[in-house]
C-alpha cells in the first residue's frame, strides 16, 4: 500500500516539476488566429523566427488559436489571469476590452512617432480608440462588396435605381434569382448599416445615445432590400452555392470568399464591384487588431514586435494570411494588390467603410433588435416604419441604461 502512495506522490512531483521550467531571456507570448493552411502557418512562423534571430534578448512565442474559438479562449484566459502579453483581437472588441481596463494604452508609443498614422486608413484607426486613446493597432481590415455573375449581368449597377432595374431584368422565375437579400439575423444586421450609410444616414447618432436608423435613410435602405426580395425568391437563394452555380446573379460577400470560388468553381465568371449607392458609396468594416495586455511583463518589447509586424513587407504577409487587406494606404500600390483586380476592387471599396458603433451592447442590439426589425419588414409582418420605430424605441432603452 505504501508503495502505491509513494508512486502517486512521485507522479505528482513529476507533474508539478514539468510546469515550473523557467524560460531563458525575455519571453513574449503572442496569440494569433490559426491561419487556414500549413503554408500560411509557416509564413507567420518564419516572420516570428526572423524577429527572434534579429533580437537575441527577446523570444516571441507564438500560439495559434482557431478563429472560431479565439474570443472564448482569450476571455477565459483573461478571467484566470493567464492571458498572453499580446494578441490578435477583433477590432470591434478593442474598445470594449479597453473599457474593462485590461488593455495597455498605446498612446505614448503611437505619439512617440514610431508609426506614421497618416499611412493608416482612418476607418480602421477609429475602431481601436477608446476614450480618445489608442488601445490597439489595426493589423488587417475587411469589408463587403458586390459579387456579380458576369454572364448574367452585362452592365454593373452603380446606383440603387440601377440595381433594382437590373434585378428586374435578370430575374427568371424558378431559375435565376437577382440578389441574395440578407436576412434578419446577426449577419444581415451586420451588413445593413452599409446601406443606411449609403443613403446618407447612420444607425446611431454621433454620441451613440440615440437610434436614428428609423429616419428616412434607414427606411430607404430597408425598402430597397424588401423590393429586391421580390426578384430574389429564398427558394433559390437559400440553396447551397447558389451564386457559384449561377442561380443568383448578385450577392454581398467579403474578400474571404474569393479563394473558395477560385478553387471550387473555376468556371464561374464573376466580377466584384462597389456596392451600388444612393447618395454615396459605403460598406461596413471588420478586421483584426494587435493589442498589448495591461499585465504584459515588458510592454516596450511587445511594442517593438508590433512595429516589426507593421513594416510594409510584413504587413502584406500578415494581411494576406487572413484573406483580408492591409491597413496602410501606402500599400495600395503594392504589386500583390495592384495587379489583382479582385483585391484592387476591395481596396477601393474599403475607402468607403463606415465603422460600427463602439458601445458594449451593440452586438446584442444588432442581433436582437435590428435583426428582428429587418425580419418583420422583409416578411411583411409589420410595415417598414412600424418595425423600425419599435426597434428604435427598444434600442434607445438599452442605450439609456448603458450610458448611466
Amino acid at each position, binding site marked *: 500500500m505504501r508503495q502505491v502512495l509513494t508512486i502517486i506522490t512521485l507522479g505528482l512531483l513529476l507533474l508539478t516539476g514539468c510546469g515550473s521550467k523557467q524560460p531563458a531571456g525575455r519571453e513574449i507570448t503572442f496569440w494569433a488566429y490559426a491561419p487556414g493552411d500549413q503554408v500560411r502557418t509557416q509564413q507567420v512562423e518564419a516572420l516570428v523566427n526572423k524577429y527572434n534571430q534579429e533580437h537575441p534578448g527577446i523570444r516571441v512565442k507564438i500560439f495559434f488559436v482557431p478563429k472560431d474559438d479565439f474570443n472564448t479562449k482569450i476571455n477565459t484566459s483573461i478571467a484566470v489571469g493567464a492571458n498572453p502579453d499580446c494578441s490578435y483581437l477583433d477590432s470591434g472588441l478593442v474598445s470594449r476590452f479597453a473599457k474593462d481596463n485590461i488593455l495597455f494604452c498605446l498612446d505614448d508609443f503611437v505619439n512617440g512617432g514610431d508609426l506614421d498614422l497618416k499611412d493608416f486608413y482612418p476607418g480602421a484607426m477609429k475602431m481601436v480608440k477608446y476614450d480618445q486613446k489608442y488601445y490597439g493597432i489595426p493589423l488587417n481590415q475587411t469589408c463587403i462588396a458586390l459579387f456579380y455573375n458576369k454572364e448574367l449581368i452585362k452592365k454593373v449597377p452603380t446606383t440603387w435605381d440601377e440595381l433594382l432595374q437590373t434585378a428586374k431584368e435578370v430575374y427568371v422565375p424558378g431559375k435565376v434569382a437577382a440578389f441574395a437579400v440578407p436576412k*434578419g439575423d446577426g449577419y444581415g444586421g451586420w451588413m445593413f448599416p452599409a446601406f443606411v450609410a449609403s443613403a446618407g444616414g447612420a444607425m446611431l447618432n454621433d454620441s451613440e445615445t440615440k437610434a436614428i436608423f428609423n429616419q428616412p435613410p434607414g427606411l430607404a435602405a430597408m425598402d430597397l432590400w424588401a423590393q429586391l426580395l421580390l426578384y430574389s425568391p429564398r427558394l433559390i437563394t437559400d440553396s447551397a452555392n447558389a451564386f457559384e452555380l449561377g442561380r443568383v446573379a448578385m450577392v454581398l460577400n467579403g474578400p474571404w470568399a474569393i479563394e473558395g470560388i477560385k478553387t471550387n468553381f473555376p468556371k464561374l465568371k464573376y466580377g466584384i464591384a462597389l456596392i451600388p449607392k444612393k447618395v454615396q458609396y459605403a460598406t461596413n468594416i471588420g478586421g483584426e487588431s494587435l493589442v498589448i495586455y495591461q499585465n504584459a511583463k515588458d510592454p516596450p518589447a511587445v511594442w517593438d514586435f508590433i512595429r516589426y509586424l507593421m513594416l510594409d513587407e510584413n504587413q502584406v504577409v500578415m494581411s494576406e494570411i487572413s484573406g483580408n487587406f492591409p491597413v496602410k494606404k501606402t500599400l495600395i500600390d503594392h504589386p500583390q494588390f495592384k495587379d489583382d483586380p479582385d483585391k484592387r476592387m476591395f481596396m477601393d471599396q474599403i475607402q468607403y467603410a463606415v465603422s460600427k458603433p463602439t458601445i458594449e451592447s451593440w452586438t*446584442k442590439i444588432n442581433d436582437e433588435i435590428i435583426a*428582428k426589425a429587418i425580419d418583420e419588414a422583409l416578411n411583411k409582418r409589420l410595415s417598414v416604419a412600424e418595425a423600425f420605430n419599435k426597434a428604435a424605441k427598444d434600442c434607445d432603452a438599452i442605450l439609456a441604461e448603458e450610458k448611466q
Partner: protein
Amino acid sequence: MKLSVFSNRKVRDGITGYLFVMPLLVYFTIFVLIPIIISFYYSFTDWNMRSAPHWTGLKNYAELLFNAQKQPYFWPSLLVTVKYIVLRVPAGLALSLILALFLNSRIKGENFFKLCYFIPMITSAIAVAVLWKWLYDPIIGFINQFLAGFSLPPKNWLNDTSTALPSIAAMSVWQGAGYGMIIFLAGLKGIPEELYEAARIDGANAWQQFWNITLPLLRPVTFFLLITTIIGSFQVFDQIYVLTSGLGGPEHSTFVYILNLYNQAFRYYRMGLACAMSYILFVIILIITWVQFKYVPQEVE
C-alpha cells in the same frame, strides 16, 4: 514502524476502494461539482469574464423573467424548445420501439441492422447536421428532388418558419433512434416467453399481446428513455447551431434556449446572466422530471 491503520483490513479495503474511484471523483469534483457551485454564485453577479464580477443579487433572474424589452427572446426561446420536445420525443420513442420490435422478430442479420441503426448515434452531431443540410437543400437536396418525382412543389425546409423546427426534430429523431432501439431491445429480451405462450393459449392475438404484455412490461425502459430524451431535448444545441449557422433562423423559429444562452455568454459576454439562465433551465428540468416520476407509471403491477 508499521502503521497500524494500514494493517486494519477494513480500513485498507476502504482506501483501496477510494483509490479506485479517485480518478472519477477528482474529475467530477474539478470539472462538474466546483463549476456547478461557482456558476451558482456567478448567476447573482454581473460578469463579462474580463473584469471582476460584481454582486447584483437577483437582477439577472428578474431581467430574464420579467424584462421582455431587454431579453426579448427568453420566453420565445423556451417556447421553441418546448415545441421541439413535443415534435422530437414522442416520435423518437415510437420509432425506437418500432425498430426494436422489428429486430426482435428473429429476423436474419439482426446484428447488421443493429449496427446500421446505431451508426448515426455514434456519428458526431455536427457531421450529421452537415449531411442533412444537403438533404434539405431547396434545389439540389434529395428530399425536394424526391418530391419533384411525384410532381410535388419544392419546400424551403430549413428556411421556412413552418418547416424549420420540424425538419430539425426529424433529423434528431433519426439520429437518436438507434440508441432508444438498443435500450428497448434489451427490455424486450427481458420479457419472459411464458407470458406470450400463456396469452396465446388464452387466444390473444398479436395486437392484444403487444398491448397487454409487451407495452406494460417495457414501462421501466420507456420511462428511462422518456426522462433522458426530454432532458436531452431541453439541451439541444449543436444540430441547430450547425443547421442555422448559429442564428436560430428563420425569424428565430429555431432559436432554442441553449442557443440563446450561448449567445448571452459568448457573443454578448454576459456570463452572469448566462449562468442564471442555466439555473432556470435546471429548475425547469427538475420540476418536469419530478412530475414524470410522480405521474408516469414506471412499474408493472
